[in-house]
């Protein structure tokens, strides 16, 4: 669950010894041609401290570039006391925080103190749960708490290294004893935030740093188990100048990373823009990205480093989309070099590049693709067929031969339901609720709807009605639409006359039937939204209009106008001899179009007959039943 590389702690030796020079001079006077009398600058040497800090910081850069979450690193600076630069908190897991902390620690000062304090503090820190660990519910606290400590120090001989490791082991045992004592009691009460966890395994890497020419009596020691598997110790001896390379190499197995050399990247020279030279850039990424290459290689080939050739992109490439598998983050191995910067900028500008395996025999095979997304670089492996390739044609499948889908309208609906990055919870459910509203009445095909084809006549009703709530003005606007429809009907106009000319032919039904469908659809649309009060008011108006639909012309025009301008609270069917309404008798378009005769009148809902001009109550006995029970 939590692998060893979930938690890493750097222990940096800040004792006076680390103030000495690394004896690896760096000469700044590269341009010697400044004429006579020019006093050359003395070369500069980094101190051991500077070397170890920059190496550790580079290690962190690689890790945090590739793993924005889940891989935590802490720094402990050790001199006479242990200075803990950051905690496991996510906000403190970045280079800026570390560098600021290092500024405060400052260069090496005189004073006593050894590495032991820092190492003990580091072991204590391993016991502290990371945010991910403490967020696990207490019932699932049986995970392995593992970690790695990289201790950069300088010891006199193997014996002092051994005693260092033994002190670490002792501290670990003591710490676990304490943690296991605390835990049983805490599991009953305040177990939500236990003080410390038992450390199940600690990988201690001791890096012994020396200046360039100094003799050392410390030797490399391979990984050895201590304390019956509680701790494994590894000792690596390094010159200060090689420390950065060493840690750059160690980070690979620690996080299962691999290096790819991208070779043959053409780049323009600053001085000579007309020609280009080829450069190589090393990039670091998850070792899994090589799995495909390695699988096809022999054991001997698999030990070699991976070199892939730049395949100059031609025009628009598919980008990372062409790769069907997973993607992995990429970071340059040497972030400051000019070719690296060029490659990174090329990709960040939105271009992608394919990489190929160099082959002696000719023939090209694309193997990987490099692309940037969201300001980060990614590598994906190409190759292999996908099991979903060669899909069956949609046109032969279900619904494939229907040609009049309302694609444009659905496109508009998609634009209205575009997602945006928001802050705070519930965004997803708001989006779903909105989609729900927008699709409550949504015929799939053009031929199954009349109102959505009428365009400007229905505006703004079809647009407004999907809103969560309507203002009074919006309700009035919708009423306006209904009124104008009513007007059209009374003028004996055909609704299909308003359709675009190419669609008019499809609607050849009788005028009454067409109007019946318009009102029926409108009712379905509005009724589907009739949860809010304003929508209900609109529905009432609509029902009035529709009721009027089949009344003899002219007779009740005044009442309809009154109904549509009434307050939203005006009772349903008021003043509208409710007997001629077929609101409650749904009809299918098919029947409508076939013109099946239907009874001109049907008996009205008994409740309404009883209620007269008041609002009819549904299920009146229900309330009585409830009351009777009490």
């Amino acid at each position: 669950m939590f692998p060893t590389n979930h938690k890493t702690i750097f222990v940096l030796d800040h004792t006076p010894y680390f103030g000495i020079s690394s004896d690896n001079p760096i000469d700044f006077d590269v341009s010697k041609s400044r004429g006579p009398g020019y006093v050359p600058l003395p070369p500069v040497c980094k101190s051991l401290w500077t070397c170890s800090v920059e190496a550790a910081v580079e290690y962190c850069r690689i890790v945090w570039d590739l793993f924005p979450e889940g891989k935590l690193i802490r720094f402990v600076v050790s001199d006479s006391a242990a200075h803990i630069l950051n905690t496991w908190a996510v906000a403190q897991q970045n280079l800026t925080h570390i560098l600021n902390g290092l500024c405060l620690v400052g260069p090496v000062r005189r004073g006593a103190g050894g590495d032991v304090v820092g190492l003990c503090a580091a072991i204590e820190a391993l016991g502290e749960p990371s945010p991910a660990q403490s967020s696990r519910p207490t019932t699932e606290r049986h995970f392995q708490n593992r970690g790695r400590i990289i201790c950069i120090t300088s010891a006199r001989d193997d014996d002092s290294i051994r005693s260092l490791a033994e002190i670490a082991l002792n501290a670990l045992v003591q710490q676990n004893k304490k943690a296991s004592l605390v835990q049983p009691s805490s599991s009953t009460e305040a177990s939500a935030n236990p003080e410390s966890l038992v450390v199940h395994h600690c990988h201690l890497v001791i890096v012994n740093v020396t200046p360039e020419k100094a003799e050392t009596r410390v030797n490399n020691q391979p990984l050895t188990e201590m304390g019956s598997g509680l701790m494994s110790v590894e000792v690596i001896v390094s010159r200060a100048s090689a420390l950065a390379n060493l840690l750059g190499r160690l980070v690979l197995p620690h996080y299962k990373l691999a290096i790819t050399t991208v070779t043959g990247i053409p780049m323009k020279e600053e001085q000579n823009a007309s020609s280009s030279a080829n450069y190589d850039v090393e990039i670091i990424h998850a070792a899994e990205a090589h799995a495909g290459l390695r699988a096809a290689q022999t054991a001997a080939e698999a030990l070699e480093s991976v070199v892939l050739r730049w395949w100059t992109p031609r025009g628009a490439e598919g980008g990372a989309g062409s790769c069907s598998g997973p993607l992995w983050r990429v970071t340059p191995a040497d972030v400051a070099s000019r070719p690296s910067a060029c490659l990174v900028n090329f990709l960040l500008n939105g271009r992608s590049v394919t990489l190929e395996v160099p082959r002696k025999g000719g023939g090209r095979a694309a193997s990987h693709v490099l692309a940037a997304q969201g300001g980060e670089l990614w590598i994906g492996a190409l190759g292999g067929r996908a099991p979903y390739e060669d899909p069956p044609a949609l046109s032969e499948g279900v619904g494939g031969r229907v040609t009049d889908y309302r694609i444009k309208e659905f496109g508009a609906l998609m634009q209205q339901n575009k997602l945006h990055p928001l802050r705070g919870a519930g965004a997803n459910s708001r989006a779903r609720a909105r989609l729900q509203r927008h699709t409550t009445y949504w015929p799939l095909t053009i031929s199954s709807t009349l109102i959505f084809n009428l365009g400007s006549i229905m505006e703004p009703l079809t647009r407004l009605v999907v809103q969560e709530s309507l203002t009074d003005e919006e309700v009035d606007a919708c009423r306006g639409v209904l009124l104008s429809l009513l007007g059209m009907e009374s003028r004996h106009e055909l609704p299909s006359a308003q359709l675009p000319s190419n669609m008019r032919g499809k609607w050849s039904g009788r005028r009454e039937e067409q109007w019946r469908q318009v009102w029926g659809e409108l009712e379905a649309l509005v009724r589907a939204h009739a949860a809010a009060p304003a929508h209900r008011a609109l529905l009432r108006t609509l029902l009035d209009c529709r009721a009027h639909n089949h009344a003899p012309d002219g007779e009740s025009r005044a009442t309809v106008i009154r109904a549509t301008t009434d307050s939203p609270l005006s009772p349903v069917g008021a003043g509208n001899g409710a007997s001629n309404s077929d609101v409650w008798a749904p009809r299918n378009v098919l029947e409508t179009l076939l013109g099946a005769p239907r009874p001109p009148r049907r008996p009205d809902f008994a409740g309404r007959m009883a209620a007269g001009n008041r609002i009819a109550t549904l299920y009146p006995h229900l309330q009585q039943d409830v009351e009777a029970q009490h």
Partner: protein
Amino acid sequence: MPTAILLDISLSMSRPIPIPDSTENITRLTLASAAINTFLDYLSVHAKLEYVALVTFSSMYEVAVPFTRDYESIKVKLPQLEEGDKTCIETALLGVNQLILGEWGYQTLVQTILITDGSCGAGAIGRNRIIQALPLPPSFPSKIHVLPIVSPHDSSLQHAMPLYQKIVDLAGNTANNSTGSINRGAIYCPDQLSVSGVVSTMNKLCEQQYQEFWCTLKCGKLETRVQLFPAPQPASHEGLAATYTISNQIHVIGFLQQQDLGTPIAISKHLIIPQAQSGNNTTNRENFGSKTPTKEGSSTEGTTTDEDMSDPSKVPNFCVLLHGALKVEGMAAIVQLGPDWWGTVSAWCEASRARRSCLLLGVLRPGASAAPWLGALDQLGPADDATTTEAFPVRSWRSYSGGGSGCAWARPHALLADVQKVLRHARKLPDKTQHLYKELNRLRRAAISLGFSELLTCVGSALERECASLPSSAPPECALQLAHAAAALRDPRTALDIKHTLQPLATNFTVTSMSH
């Protein structure tokens, strides 16, 4: 997931099976063929997009039929198979591995059905040697099922069982776990050595391992029943707290422009194949205009007549509409697959078959951070008119070092470049005064955090040297600024104070020269 059928054609497979009252000559190979036919028949009903290959083996292996969806070609091949010599499983598995790797790469889960004679062809020592030599686990995700054509009480089966178990176990321990751990294969022993026994065993295998995956794709009130192919596997790997299984309802949350979406890290991709809705049509027709309109995706009003109902391709389906609109608008849908799990739906077509386009579901890595440039996926929501929202891509607060933020001086050339930059500006005073101080402050900041005070001393003396070598024609401001900067770098009170910022010397020379 593609399937390789690995069929034993060693001599022992030609042993006849005694059947009391029948003169028919039934061999184990006949039973194996019956099993394969059953398998292919099952696929052609339930998963006809599955690719299947037939590999035969004895001491050698041969790809009898390469991966195909044309199951007939395998059925035709079965009676033509010639018997070989002796069972040699490890060679066969090696061959299958090569075939699969060449065809499917190392990212696709491939199932292998090993149909053999139920004896490992060796004694206890030989068996252990075979186990040692097994080319497993393969470098691609795989599952191996074993179907021994043997009577359950055969003693050779007891002897071969450990080998089969090892094959099944090892195949699951794939080294490449990017797609997450997968369920292991299994051993399917027929309960009797007869055609019906073998067929029923094969049916069991099919039902357990080739279950088609059905779910409902919902977009608000529009919905349709779809099949996902290949059937999605539960996702779980070391970074995940739990195992994730796709729920049987996939909810569309909203839509994104394809270029905003980019290519999120998908753990698998699946075709979305719409399915005919049986039985819904009639209810739908009655529903028109009522209080529950168009609840199903296939609203069937309009000109459709009863004859059309029998032809599902003429019944409108939401999937086709969604596909068309996604394609026209260049958009993709974000869908919720389950709690804390998202996916993408987009219109996809192979480059070589531009006209054959389909809906593709990309199953993202579980968790809200599968596409960091979209922000947290659980916080994707509709834009309200009032609030101005962030735009894609969402920049992470953690700056990417590739952008060149830092002081990676571990390699000397980087340090050299930074120092040279300061000196270049120093030589171009007074125009570059601001640049000089900006670079100096950057250098200082880096040097202080690395405890590299030696560098500051060195740069200080380099600036002094520049000052000394100024030509006599240089404006006096240059010398003053250089001396000021050099002194500031070495001022013991402020040199190592990170909060202190070097400021240019405020001179009035520029003012006087301007007035002339």
